[in-house]
C-alpha cells in the first residue's frame, strides 16, 4: 500500500503551478535577518531581568562602603538600544557608543574626545553624561519601576556617541579605540 500511496501523492502534485520567479534565497536571507534581530531583542529582555537581579542583590548588601558600583555596561548598552537599530554588530556599524570607566580621569576623557574629534571616520560626536544616561534609562525601563528605583545616575557610565562615515571601517575603528585608557566598552550598531 505505501508504494501506491506515493503514486497517488505524485498525481496530486501533477498540477503544480510554475513556481514564482524571484530571488528566493535573497528574500529568505532578508527575512531571516529580521527574525534574528527580533530574537536578539528578546534575548536582550532576559539580560535585563538578570540585571534587575544583580542590582537588587547589590542594594540588599548592608551598608555599602565607598562609591556605588557602576552598573555593568550591559545595562547601559540596553539604555541606548533604539528599536530600529541592531546592537551589537561585529562589522559594518553606522553608530558607535564608547562607554567610559567609572574611574576615568579628566585627562583620559579629554584625550579621547580630541582623538575622536580628529578622526576622519567620526561625525556627529556627542558626549553623554551620567545624568543623561539616567534620563534615557528611566524612559527605557519605565515598565520596570523596581529597576529604575534600584539604579541612580552615578551607577551609569558616561559615553561618547558617534556615527561612522564609513560603516565598513568599524572593525578597524573599534581596534583603535576599544583598548584606550579610560574606555570600559565599545559597541557598534547598525541603524537604518
Amino acid at each position, binding site marked *: 500500500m505505501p508504494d501506491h500511496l506515493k503514486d497517488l501523492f505524485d498525481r496530486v502534485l501533477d498540477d503544480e503551478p510554475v513556481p514564482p520567479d524571484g530571488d528566493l534565497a535573497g528574500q529568505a*536571507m532578508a527575512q531571516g535577518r529580521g*527574525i534574528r534581530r527580533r530574537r536578539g531583542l528578546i534575548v536582550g529582555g532576559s539580560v535585563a531581568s538578570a540585571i534587575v537581579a544583580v542590582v537588587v542583590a547589590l542594594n540588599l548588601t548592608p551598608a555599602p562602603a565607598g562609591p556605588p558600583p557602576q552598573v555593568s555596561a550591559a545595562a547601559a548598552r540596553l539604555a541606548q538600544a533604539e528599536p530600529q537599530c541592531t546592537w*551589537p554588530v561585529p562589522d559594518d556599524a553606522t553608530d558607535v557608543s564608547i562607554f567610559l570607566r567609572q574611574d576615568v580621569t579628566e585627562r583620559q576623557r579629554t584625550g579621547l574626545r580630541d582623538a575622536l574629534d580628529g578622526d576622519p571616520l567620526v561625525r556627529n560626536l556627542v558626549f553623554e553624561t551620567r545624568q543623561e544616561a539616567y534620563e534615557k534609562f528611566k524612559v527605557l525601563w519605565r515598565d520596570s519601576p523596581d529597576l529604575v528605583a534600584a539604579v541612580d545616575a552615578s551607577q551609569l557610565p558616561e559615553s561618547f556617541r558617534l556615527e561612522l562615515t564609513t560603516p565598513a571601517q568599524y572593525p578597524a575603528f573599534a581596534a583603535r579605540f576599544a583598548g584606550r585608557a579610560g574606555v570600559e566598552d565599545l*559597541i557598534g550598531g547598525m541603524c537604518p
Partner: protein
Amino acid sequence: MNERVANVVSSDTGWGFTRRHERAARDEEFTAFVAAATPRLRRTAYLMCRDWHLAQDLTQLTLARMYASWGRIGRNANLAAYSRRVLMNAVFDQRKRRSGAEVVLADLPDRPGDPAGPTAELHVTLMRALSTLPVRDQAIVVLRHWEDHSVDTVAEILGVSASVVKMRSMRALGRLRELLGEDFVLQ
C-alpha cells in the same frame, strides 16, 4: 560582547575581513541549499495544506527561519530533516491560527454534486480523506509515504518516539483505507 571587542583589538583589522569572508561563504552555502531544497519543500507543504500559495508562503517562512539559525545549524546537521521540522512547525502554527479550516474540509466529501464525489479520481479523494486526520498524523503520512523518510527520521522531525510514529502511521493508514474504501485496497 566584551570578548568580541577583545577579538577586534587583538587580531587587528584582519578580523573584519575574516568575518565578512565567512559570511559570504555562509550565504553561498545557504543559496545552494535553497536551490536544492525548495521544490521538494514546497510540494511537501502543498500536501499538508492543499493550497499552492500557502505552500509557497510556508516554504518561504521555513527558509527565512533556517537562515536566521544558519550559523548554528552546523555543517554536519541533517538539513533534510531539520528543514522538514521547521516546515512542519510552520504548518502546525498556521493550522492553529485558522483551526476552523479542517472541519470545513472534512465536510466536503459528502456534499451533493461535489466534483469530488464517488466518481472523483482517487488521488483527489485521498487528499480529502487525508484532511480529516489530525494534522500530526497527516504529517506522518506525508513524511513517511511521500517523502519516504525512515520511521526514525520522521520521529526526529516531529520530536516524538519511533514507536509513536509507527503506531500513529498504522492508525492513519487504517483510517484512510476506511475512508477510501475498496478502490484503495485493490489498486
